[in-house]
């Protein structure tokens, strides 16, 4: 079981928010920017031939003798796309600190919140430069069990190519919405192109940077050969106190530059170190970052 009952209850209370409201295929619980058929008044506009006469405001016509169409707010649902980086580098960390398991739990949590608030959820696993498996789009709490089954069957593996995988995801026409990428960003080609492409399709983007604690402060010393678990590339280092310190500084600088880059592109960024409990990230940090209401 990925979730216990109490966590699920907490998840239900959350609703995801998106700063820009998208049009939805079904009436949802969110305000849409599209003017629609609800009861809440939004605006007036000039009548144009072919408009539904039912929406003409006769009172205004009587007063001004000019036809105006009364625009009403339309409420819509949100399309939430959770993209999980499924590369081998995500399979790092012991037990609860394993980054992939952690990302799956975060995805499940986000999915549960999304489904509970009636929004449309799509989950994609990015592997080997493509979308290796996909869940959804689906909505409604009934899909929750299916979601969990889907997540439990996912396995990490292969090399990262976030850019290609995200392009692969964006080629298929999907409802524009909120794209949340869960990744460690250990990708030589970077991730920016892919995200930009997604945003070009009208998506809003958010990034959860999943990192294990020993990636920030490696417990290594002496003359060692580092083997990359993903690419099997080797790197000789002679680790002394100075180099370790420089590594820590470098890692911190990398996170900060990523954060700055995201802020510049209007991408929400959240750093999730797996030494923190995942529900703490979901319930507290995500709320603080504005992911959920």
């Amino acid at each position, binding site marked *: 079981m990925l979730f216990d009952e109490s966590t699920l209850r907490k998840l239900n209370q959350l609703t995801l928010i998106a700063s820009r409201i998208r049009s939805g295929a079904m009436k949802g619980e969110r305000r849409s920017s599209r003017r629609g058929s609800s009861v809440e008044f939004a605006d007036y506009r000039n009548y144009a031939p072919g408009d539904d006469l039912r929406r003409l405001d006769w009172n205004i016509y009587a007063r001004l003798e000019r036809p105006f169409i009364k625009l009403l707010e339309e409420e819509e649902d949100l399309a939430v796309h959770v993209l999980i980086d499924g590369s081998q580098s995500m399979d790092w960390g012991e037990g609860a600190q394993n980054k992939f398991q952690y990302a799956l739990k975060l995805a499940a949590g986000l999915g549960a919140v999304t489904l509970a608030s009636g929004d449309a959820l799509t989950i994609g696993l990015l592997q080997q430069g493509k979308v290796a498996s996909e869940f959804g789009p689906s909505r409604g709490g009934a899909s929750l069990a299916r979601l969990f089954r889907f997540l439990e069957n996912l396995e990490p593996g292969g090399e990262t190519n976030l850019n290609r995988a995200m392009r692969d995801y964006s080629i298929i026409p999907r409802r524009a919405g909120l794209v949340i990428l869960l990744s460690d960003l250990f990708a030589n080609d970077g991730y920016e192109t892919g995200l930009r492409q997604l945003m070009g399709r009208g998506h809003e983007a958010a990034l959860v940077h999943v990192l294990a604690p020993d990636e920030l402060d490696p417990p290594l010393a002496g*003359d060692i050969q580092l083997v990359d678990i993903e690419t099997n590339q080797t790197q000789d280092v*002679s680790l002394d106190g100075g180099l370790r310190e420089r590594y820590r500084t470098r890692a911190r600088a990398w996170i900060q530059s990523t954060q700055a880059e995201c802020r510049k592109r209007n991408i929400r960024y959240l750093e999730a170190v797996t030494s923190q409990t995942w529900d703490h990230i979901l319930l507290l940090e995500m709320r603080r970052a504005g992911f959920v209401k």
Partner: protein
Amino acid sequence: MDIYFVPCWRIKQSFFFPLSSYPVSRNPYLVPMQLLTPLALTLAALAVPIILLYMLKLRRKQETVSSTFLWRQLLREQQANAPWQKLKRNLLLLLQLLILAALVFALARPALQVPVVASGSVIVLLDASASMNAVDVNPTRFDSARDSVLDLINGLSPASSLTLILVAEKPQTLIAAETDKSLLRQALDNAQASQGSADWESAFALAAGAGSNSTFVIVSDGGLPESGLPALPGEVRFIPVGASQNNLAISALALRPAQKSPQLFAEVTNYDSADRNVLLSIYFNDQLIDARQLSVQANSSRSLTLDALSNESGIYKATITTPNSNNSLNSLNPPNSQSSINSLDSLPLDNTAFAVFQSSSSRRVLLVSNGNLFLEQLLASLPGIQPFRALPAADGTIQMPNDPFDLYIFDGVAPPELPKANLLFVNPSSNPLFEVGGTYNEFQNMQVDQHALTNFVDWSNVHILQAKTVQTPAWAETLIESDSGPLVFAGETKGQRIAALAFDLKESDLPLQIAYPILFSNLINYLAPPSAFDATRSLEPGESLSILPPSNAERIVVASPSDQAYTLALDQTVFTQTDELGYYAVNFISGDSNHVEYFAVNLFDEAESNISPRETIQIGRSTVTPTASQQIGQRELWSWLAALALLVLMIEWQVFHRRQIPSLPIFRNNLDAEKR
């Protein structure tokens, strides 16, 4: 294997004077270096396993990480920043190879060839006489000589051996034919200069016995006798020590009993080549009694006689100081501050002298006799004698008085048990000390043997009627004898002085001769000396002193000038530890009473006081001049290399330690705590 090193400060010059333009042997810029055990260089092959081990170690422990993404970025920056990073990675290997190189080179025993005075089998005669205490060379001549010998030891080639003979009053071999330099240095460190004169003849005999075909190195300021030294079996080299001849000495200080009061004679000699003024101060028991300024011309002496001195026993001390120092006539304090003495001349040892005056006390002499007018009158007339007489009882038994006497004279009688004191037998009867036989009256060829006790004794007119047959015991010496046997003998056994006349005075015309008072005065002074030893003349350092303790003494303790106490056994009557200059107190302890007598040891030795360094010395028929360093010695450098290896080892450890620290569990815990 010869390696030529060019000292770095020479390199610049060699641009202008190419090294090849010098013949190698005369090239002043080349210091040839030798490897004594070049075979050890093969140990350099140990570098191969070190490098192999390092390469094995360089197949690094593999550590899997989630991604080398950040590492590669970091190292790319690093290598761009510091090109020596690669070198730093191999720092440990380089340091280890450096340690190995230093150790291998040390084992190969590199040695610089340095010029030395001698090599091969070397016998060093190190002068330790009083003049070597002179301070004209800083700190002293002896220390300077020791440095010269140390240089010689350091420069010894490994095959060379060295024998070190310290030449003092009694020359001694400090270390013989030793090749171990540390032992040699230790022996040299223990050598001390004495305060006496040096016995060069014995030293030469010792040296000649120590080895032939050796190189003899004499380190001295040249106080060797001008002639009479035997030739040494080998080459002789001479290392002179000393720079100055600036010395004044008290060359004589003596007391003489005059008619009423003793008379003091003091002599100051100037060995310097310039005229000098000195202040001569005379102290009696540390009280200044006279001080006068003397002007002493170069290489001459001035003397001083003081009359009307006190009749008390006591110690006279004479010192010479510079006249304008604080020690004026009015000064009550004796000038014993070392600085004022030092400033006078280069050798302070001979600036002070002591003389002892021992007022004679009367000696108790017991005459056991049936009546002998000649002896009674003689004893009554001798000065310093308090005579007593004991008569044997009518039945011939002798009642000996309980009080001890200095001398017992038995005239024709002898008690069955002899007192433990000095004895004189006249016309002896049978006694435990020597055999007495019958009488005889044939006296052919009476003659007087040469002896201190028979000085001025004219026996030519003496006639004897009859005498007793006696045998001279082994411990005694015959003084006067005829063909028929000894007539007078004297000697010492078990701390007792014994003398005997084999004839009755009444049966000879000896008491009528001039020889009678002379012989008896000599004998009684010998048997009952005015004091336990002759203190009127001062001793030379190292000279032995014979002591005749008073009969009641139970213990003899001699205190040296440096307050060292020597306890003498009662039958040991020769005191030999007279190495120090100054006055010695001889304590005769009996029960609670203590009787003290003094004697003085002075350096009245011209050879030692004349400290002017000699240019040459005369040995056998050849003259030896100071030797320049001609032979090639070797100065080994391995200790420096070993020290270097140790230093590098410490650096290597430090480097290794710094690298390893983060992997220690304790630090890892700290890091975890930080993260939390």
